[in-house]
């Protein structure tokens, strides 16, 4: 997948080709073709109506795909904008996760879908176009070519109407296949010339200049006189026509910022601007912009909006703004929302233009440039290195990149200029604004940039050789007895199943929310039962017996930190990534906002006790969301301890959890037996007595079904071993099971002591002798050593040296037969037995 690094900010400029065809709408001028020029690679790309284009999206690796329907200049507002009407295509990754299974097959890597949905906004700004792309429409019976070379080409085979996939209609297919000629790339021009001689550039410059101008007097009055101001004056003297418009404030803002930057970085440049002190430039400037605006008395609402956008850091705030407007009037919306990207865009552009001008006018710049070039060279090299890492880049982009070295330095400055108040760590932020509106209504309101692509599907590689299928009865039994084998039904949990099922079902039918707390010791089938309930409900949802719902599962143990639960839930619900705090906000909005037409969400929180935090805010939120009016969230919380709500939860949390509780009792021996029998089902591998024995043993120990299954599995192995010499494989007998149980549960201390060396055994004896002498359960090494020496003398053993005895002591300590202090205490280290004295004596007596 080629990734389209919009972050690189290779600046593109657009100009119309051909004459405008006036439209019946007064302000619209319709064009047939547009010329896209990437400023630094000096290639021109002509894009005609009817071609397919890539459009900037949230994810650089996967830009949006669309077909151009119409190109027009929207003159209804000032300055007029180049716009385009498009027909969207969706990638598979843009389809909501819950609907992806509808495709019924794995999507091809380059497959896209015709987006058949009338409600989405299909007007975009031309600036958001990245470039043309090849799209091939395929008839339903055609196969998508899989060769690697055609990575640039996308294929469309089906259409997606937010509900189901359908094959393309023949007419559509024909229309799509009537391919427009591919984009013409002109020869790269001399990079130097473009600054002055490129006709487009000058016109563009003029256009911008004419559009952004203001009264100089206003400026000076608005700002205290400072080196900045002086600089600004100079700039505005550069021949900008003075039309009263508040725009200039922004323009000059970017200029002055620009120059500040430069002066900071390059001392050679400081002739014109002495290093000014800068404190929150973005904040100050924008507010001054507002000020000047007020002074002028031009209170265009959209201007105010623009400066607002500059200042706000919170994208959600912005989206709410837009939402409000959208509610106001649909026509107005286009007007308004179009301003948003504009405001952010223009300062950047002007910043650059102005700088270019400076570059010509000021002789000092030459030295500055030389300096810069050398630094650029290294920068370039570094970037190139980085580039190499990404193996699949298109050639075109590489070319683009190399020639972009000239600007790449300045882009970083520009980033600062255009989003002064935004935190630097996400320069992609503005790309959210590039799009006029979120495309499908199903898509979430705002997205944040992600570091790791969530589309990457990691997978352990497949095995080359097929798995050997079980051949004997015992092997078959072992497969069935493995804990991972999912049984068709869950025996002995019918009542619990019924309770949980009816709880969730009633919530689904009512369209309300609720919590349920499920407790039980490990291995009693809590998670399995809930999974079974969900499976049944999903089946019921398919037959429309219950309303459809979304199911999300999180596990406290699979999180690194309690707050990560938000991230996980959000990612599983919507597929987007966010920080924990942001995810919490989004989820709260999602679950708490009233009347959201979403499906009910069923949330399973496994290992709830791991979500404990000091403030218990995670638990609080999880149980608080369902209590909101209109929240359609069912929370099923699972933990081990029955009294968890009383023990560790604050009152306000346990109160929200409510009283719907269920506890899973440990399995009784009858139930365990039933489980085993149902798993083995007609498979005669065990003696009846053997099953009875294991069921009773485990029930007496813990009632953990996992243990039961593991013991049986081990017993089949033992049975297999013992029969290798014999004739045929027999049944698993009681003896085999006893052996397995012994192996798993018998304490190994006694065997360990029996297998100790003589000196180690002598040391253990000495410990017991010392304990008896002192009557305490603890002794220092020195005391034991003297006992040990005495014992050795009595038994006629060689005298053990201190070092040897010390080694013996630490050996026993590392096995945890003894509990010893760290060895730096030497003679004074205290020693305790980790086994009972009787065990030690028993083990030593045997010989």
């Amino acid at each position, binding site marked *: 997948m080629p990734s389209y690094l919009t972050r690189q900010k290779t600046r593109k400029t657009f100009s119309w080709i051909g004459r405008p065809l006036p439209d019946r709408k007064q302000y619209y001028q319709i064009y047939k073709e547009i010329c896209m020029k990437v400023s630094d690679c000096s290639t021109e790309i002509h894009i005609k109506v009817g071609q397919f284009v890539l459009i900037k999206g949230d994810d650089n690796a996967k830009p949006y795909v669309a077909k151009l329907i119409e190109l027009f200049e929207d003159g209804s507002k000032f300055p007029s904008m180049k716009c385009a009407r498009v027909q969207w295509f969706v990638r598979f990754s843009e389809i909501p996760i819950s609907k992806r299974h509808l495709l019924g097959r794995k999507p091809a890597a380059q497959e896209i879908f015709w987006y058949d949905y009338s409600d989405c906004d299909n007007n975009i700004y031309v600036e958001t176009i990245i470039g043309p792309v090849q799209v091939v429409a395929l008839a339903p019976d055609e196969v998508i070519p899989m060769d690697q070379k055609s990575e640039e080409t996308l294929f469309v085979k089906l259409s997606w109407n937010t509900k189901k996939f359908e094959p393309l209609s023949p007419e559509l297919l024909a229309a799509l296949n009537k391919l427009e000629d591919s984009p013409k790339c002109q020869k790269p021009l001399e990079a130097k010339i473009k600054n002055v001689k490129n006709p487009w550039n000058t016109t563009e410059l003029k256009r911008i200049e004419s559009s952004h101008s203001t009264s100089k007097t206003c400026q000076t009055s608005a700002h205290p006189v400072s080196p900045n101001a002086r600089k600004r004056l100079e700039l505005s003297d550069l021949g900008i026509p003075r039309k009263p418009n508040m725009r200039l404030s922004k323009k000059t803002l970017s200029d002055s910022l620009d120059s500040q930057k430069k002066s900071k970085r390059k001392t050679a440049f400081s002739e014109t601007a002495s290093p000014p002190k800068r404190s929150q430039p973005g904040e100050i400037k924008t507010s001054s912009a507002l000020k000047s605006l007020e002074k002028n008395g031009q209170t265009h609402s959209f201007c105010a909006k623009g400066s607002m956008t500059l200042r706000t850091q919170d994208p959600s705030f912005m989206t709410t703004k837009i939402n409000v407007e959208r509610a106001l009037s649909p026509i107005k919306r286009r007007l308004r929302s179009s301003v948003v990207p504009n405001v952010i865009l223009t300062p950047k552009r002007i910043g650059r233009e102005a700088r270019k001008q400076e570059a010509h006018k000021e002789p000092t710049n030459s030295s500055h440039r030389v300096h810069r070039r050398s630094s650029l060279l290294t920068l370039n090299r570094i970037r190139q290195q980085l580039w190499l890492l990404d193996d699949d880049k298109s050639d075109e982009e590489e070319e683009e990149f190399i020639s972009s070295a000239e600007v790449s330095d300045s882009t970083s400055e520009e980033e600062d200029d255009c989003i002064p108040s935004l935190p630097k760590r996400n320069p992609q932020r503005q790309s959210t604004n590039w799009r006029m509106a979120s495309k499908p209504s199903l898509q979430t309101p705002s997205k944040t940039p992600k570091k*790791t692509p969530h589309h990457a599907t990691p997978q*352990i590689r497949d095995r080359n050789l097929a798995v050997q299928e079980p051949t004997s009865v015992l092997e078959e039994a072992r497969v069935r007895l493995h804990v991972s084998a999912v049984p068709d039904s869950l025996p002995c949990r019918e009542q619990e199943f019924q309770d949980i099922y009816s709880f969730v079902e009633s919530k689904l039918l009512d369209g309300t929310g609720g919590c349920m707390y499920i407790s039980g010791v490990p291995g009693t089938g809590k998670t399995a039962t809930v999974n079974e309930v969900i499976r049944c409900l999903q089946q019921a949802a398919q037959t429309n017996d219950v309303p459809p719902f979304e199911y999300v599962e999180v596990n406290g143990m699979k999180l690194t930190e309690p707050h990560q639960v938000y991230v996980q839930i959000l990612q599983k619900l919507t597929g987007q990534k966010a920080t924990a705090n942001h995810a919490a906000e989004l989820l709260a909005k999602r679950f708490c906002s009233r009347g959201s037409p979403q499906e009910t969400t069923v949330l399973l929180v496994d290992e709830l006790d791991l979500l404990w935090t000091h403030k218990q805010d995670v638990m609080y939120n999880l149980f608080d969301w369902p209590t909101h009016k209109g929240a359609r969230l069912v929370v099923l919380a699972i933990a081990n301890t029955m009294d968890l709500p009383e023990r560790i939860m604050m009152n306000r949390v346990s109160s929200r959890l409510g009283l719907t509780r269920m506890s899973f009792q440990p399995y009784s021996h009858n139930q365990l037996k039933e489980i085993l029998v149902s798993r083995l089902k007609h498979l005669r591998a065990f003696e009846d007595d053997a099953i009875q024995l294991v069921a009773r043993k485990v029930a007496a120990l813990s009632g953990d079904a996992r243990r039961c299954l593991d013991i049986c599995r081990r017993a089949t192995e033992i049975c297999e071993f013992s029969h290798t010499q014999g004739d045929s494989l027999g049944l698993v007998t009681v003896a085999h099971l006893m052996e397995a149980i012994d192996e798993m549960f018998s304490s190994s201390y006694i065997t360990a002591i029996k297998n100790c060396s003589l000196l180690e055994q002598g040391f253990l004896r000495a410990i017991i002798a010392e304990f008896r002498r002192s009557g305490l359960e603890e002794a220092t090494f020195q005391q034991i050593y003297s006992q040990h020496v005495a014992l050795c003398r009595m038994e006629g053993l060689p005298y053990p040296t201190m070092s040897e005895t010390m*080694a013996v002591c630490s050996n026993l300590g590392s096995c945890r037969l003894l509990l010893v202090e760290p060895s730096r205490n030497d003679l004074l280290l205290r020693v305790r037995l980790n086994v009972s004295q009787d065990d030690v004596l028993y083990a030593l007596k045997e010989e």
Partner: protein
Amino acid sequence: MNSRKTKGNSAIHAECLPQVQRILRERFCHQSPHSNLFGVEVQYKHLIELLKRTAINGESNSVLIVGPRGSGKTMLINRALKELMEIREVSENVLQVHLNGLMQINDKIALKEITRQLNLENVVGDKVFGSFAENLSFLLEALKKGDRASSCPVIFILDEFDLFAHQKNQTLLYNLFDISQSAQTPVAVIGLTCRLDILELLEKRVKSRFSHRQIHLMNSFDFPQYMKIFKEQLSLPEEFPNKVFAERWNENAQSLSEDSTVREVLQKLFNVNKSLRSLHTLLMLALTRVTVSHPFMTSADLMEAQHLCSLDSKASIIHGLSVLEICLIIAMKHLNDIYEEEPFNFQMVYNEFQKFIQRKAHSVYNFEKPVVMKAFEHLQQLELIKPMERTSVNSQREYQLVKLLLDNTQIMNALQKYSNCPTDVRQWATSSLSWL
């Protein structure tokens, strides 16, 4: 004639001995999976069957190999893996992940290491890994994707397993065991530990997910077997280039194993420590004494090596002390006798020492107090005495309470071997209270 023959012999020896030493050193120092198994055949069979089932049948398993240090846990698993990888169908089908609790000290590092060893990092390309949480979900997702039939089995080997159990929440263990108990990518989780109480360390949920299979390695061989191991470890392999020399060397090994002094030496060692690692240390020391002029190991070499092995380190430190320091140690020994192991300070030791000096009017050991103090501090640096509290700057060092880290028998034994110890000092040492 005779001299020429010896010359020829020594040429051969000069040629062969470096090879011999290389082969044997490798055998003693590395836990090479080539060596034969001693007394662990049953355990080995259990392990190899389990691994085969994971590799061939795609069955998930978890097992712990428990045994004291030097009992051959790593050797066992290495050998099993080697055998497993020799099966052709298996070798390209199995992924291995080796982790060590001493190196992957927390889950974050462990996750990175797992990702690296599974070669999953190239999935995300040059995008560097983000947070710990992202890593975890990434890895879990990767493992979840697979299923029993189609995915490549992964064998996780966790060395120093008990240290993983000490990590926060035991997240890593929970997840590994959870995978081994669910229908995901088949895994075999093999833990190696020397702690017998390992199951008590596991959290109840983790414990429930662990299959409770344990393989115990206990050094459960007796002395005749030990002798056999000794002989086998010392013998040269058949593929040794110089057959004549190898034969002579092996004959020598055979005769050594029948020698009574050697048996005595080995019996001593066996009584102290049964692990093969201590045997290797002994043989290594003996091997260093083999030279061209002394081409075959003798019982004397082994005796000497055994002596080195069982040396009391503190006694040998005492041998290097000055007479004044010996005097101080004797004074402390007396204090211990009088005050029954109560801690004492420098002033008390000095007083005790002064008493001895005064008794001997002609004494040449009449040192200034600061000199004695210096000697006392030197003993403290050697850690023959240990301060009871932490040394603070403003406390007076003369009055700081200390304890002697030497046993009476140790002191007496050391004194006997201490050359040119004045007679009166020796007498003073033996007459604990009688001189009063």
